[in-house]
């Protein structure tokens, strides 16, 4: 640098030369990062607004309570069977995944030594990273080809459960490890056995987190399409609860099939179904987050 760092003739408050340039870069970069954040929020807003605008004109009482009209491009009718089917599929999936996820979390936080915990954590992470389409292929191979010999809702629920397990295990484990060690020690000190301590102290103490994790996984499963594609996609439009006997109509596959159709009436139904799905997922996701924040605050306040 040719100019001296401090020029005694100039007051310190006067900004010029190098410092001005540094400030300009600083402003530019900070503005850029804020613009990036606003861009992401704008995209989310645009997405939701589009779904609401297109979907709201389709949704009516009969859209929610009637089964779809039969035939390509047929207008009229609703998505009642798909709503019932999606709820059924994810309730069964969560009924499989939640107990497994919680048991895994108990093992990892209460029993496992590092040596055993690490491979199981790794397996959970890898399962979490497995593409859902591959899980769909797996469920098809295991249960459709290898078991029922035709599509069934159960195969779809199984595939969704595989997706939910790592999510529930991670969320539950995180909350269980927040339960203060003193509570466990106090329980042990009173001569209470380990299993009673876990079931009576640790589980109730982290119940909020477990419920939250389960709600988030439930909402996530509701939006998954790929696991259903080969397990529960060939269905009649009528409402059925026969989960072991037939493919179950569901919202994600309905949206996918209608979105690729050339008929405007199918597109309209896709938007209506998308609005139902997005509202369901946003409610599940937001309530899960609120519960999670409350739960965390409870433990951090101690």
């Amino acid at each position, binding site marked *: 640098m040719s100019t001296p760092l401090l020029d005694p003739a100039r007051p310190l408050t006067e900004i010029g030369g190098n410092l001005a340039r540094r400030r300009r870069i600083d402003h530019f970069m*900070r503005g850029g990062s804020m613009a990036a954040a606003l861009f992401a929020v704008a995209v989310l807003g645009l997405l939701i607004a589009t*779904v609401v605008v297109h979907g709201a004109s389709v949704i009516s009482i009969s859209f929610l309570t009637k089964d779809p009209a039969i035939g390509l491009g047929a207008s009229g009718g609703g998505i009642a069977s798909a709503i019932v089917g999606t709820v059924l599929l994810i309730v069964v999936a969560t009924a499989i995944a939640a107990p497994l996820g919680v048991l895994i979390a108990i*093992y990892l936080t209460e029993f496992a030594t590092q040596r055993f915990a690490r491979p199981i954590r790794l397996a959970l992470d890898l399962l979490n990273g497995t593409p859902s389409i591959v899980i769909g292929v797996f469920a098809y191979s295991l249960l459709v080809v290898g078991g029922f010999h035709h599509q069934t809702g159960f195969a779809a629920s199984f595939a969704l459960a595989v997706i939910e397990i790592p999510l529930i295990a991670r969320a539950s484990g995180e909350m269980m490890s927040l339960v203060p060690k003193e509570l466990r020690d106090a329980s*042990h000190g009173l001569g209470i056995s380990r299993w009673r301590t876990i079931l009576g102290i640790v589980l109730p103490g982290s119940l909020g987190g477990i419920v939250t994790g389960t709600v988030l996984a439930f909402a996530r499963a509701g939006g998954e399409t790929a696991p259903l594609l080969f397990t529960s996609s060939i269905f009649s439009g009528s409402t059925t609860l026969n989960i072991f006997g037939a493919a179950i109509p569901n919202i994600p596959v309905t949206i*996918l099939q209608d979105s690729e159709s050339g008929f405007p009436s199918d597109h309209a139904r896709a938007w209506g179904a998308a609005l139902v799905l997005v509202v369901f997922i946003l409610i599940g996701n937001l309530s899960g987050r609120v519960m999670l924040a409350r739960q965390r605050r409870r433990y951090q306040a101690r």
Partner: protein
Amino acid sequence: MSTQSAAGRLPSNRRFVDRFGDRALVGTTIVASVAVVVILALIVEHVVNGSTDAISRFGIGFLWHTIWNPSTSPGVVNANVFGAGVWVYGTIVTSGIGLIIAFPLGVAIGVFLALLAPGRAGAVIGPLVELLAAIPSVVIGLWGIIVLAPFMRSVVEPVFHDVLGFIPIFGAPSTTGLGIMTAGFVLALMALPIIASISRDIFLSVPRELKDGALALGATRWEMIRGVVLDSTRSGLMAAGILGLSRALGEAIAVTQVIGAGTSLPGGVFGNSFFNNGDTLASKIAEVFPGTNHLFTASLFYLAVILLVIELIVNLTAQLIVYRFERRQGLVR
């Protein structure tokens, strides 16, 4: 141990129940944990088993051969010959476009949320960005077909073609707006919240003393971010990018909806226009699985094997980086 002396005074049936209960709980939790490993192993076994005939028939060349012809009619050239070249190309290019867009944006959002946002703005914008990850891919795909594709066709593609048209990858605009570029944009949208929220968490873990030290030395905010924060979290950011990439590589549904199911590379590997239709490994499976004949099915399973191997490598790399990063930060004992 005090537990033992206390247990000694308990009624014997309670003692029995406790001993049984402890063992039962340990046992069931172990069974559940092992079940995860078993499921993972079963996934590998089933996918590999389904693909053996295609693997033995086409070998490793399957990865780059571009003929994919399920026809079994007599007289058809290359009948029942399969190669994944076009889908491998599509996977690399769409995920690459997605990452090139999502990585800088995601890191910038992470910087904003962790270091610059005034308290309340961060508390609102952070969850909103994460909410983007909760929107189902099939809904993003629907939006892609009906909103994004017409915009690509009428604005983005002509602009790219006019300005950079001398590069073959920015060829003539498509007639539908569906194509490789559109799929890349959609994947960017799906990887963005992952990269943003992971990089935010990484930036929050940078020790306060370092940041304050840089500011105290007269650095501007940006100089502090570049010199201290970005520099000390480089490996963590790489992991964030890799996890975003992992999301993009495996996405099937939204890509299926917007990529237009192309079957060839008209301009060759380096001359193919990004505005052409295409397909990725995942989207091809989503479109035609389980196929119409045995070798066709086995080839689709082979695609799933490739996808599984890619994801395995990508996720293990990310795990390794995260593990090293955490150990350096003293988060792992």
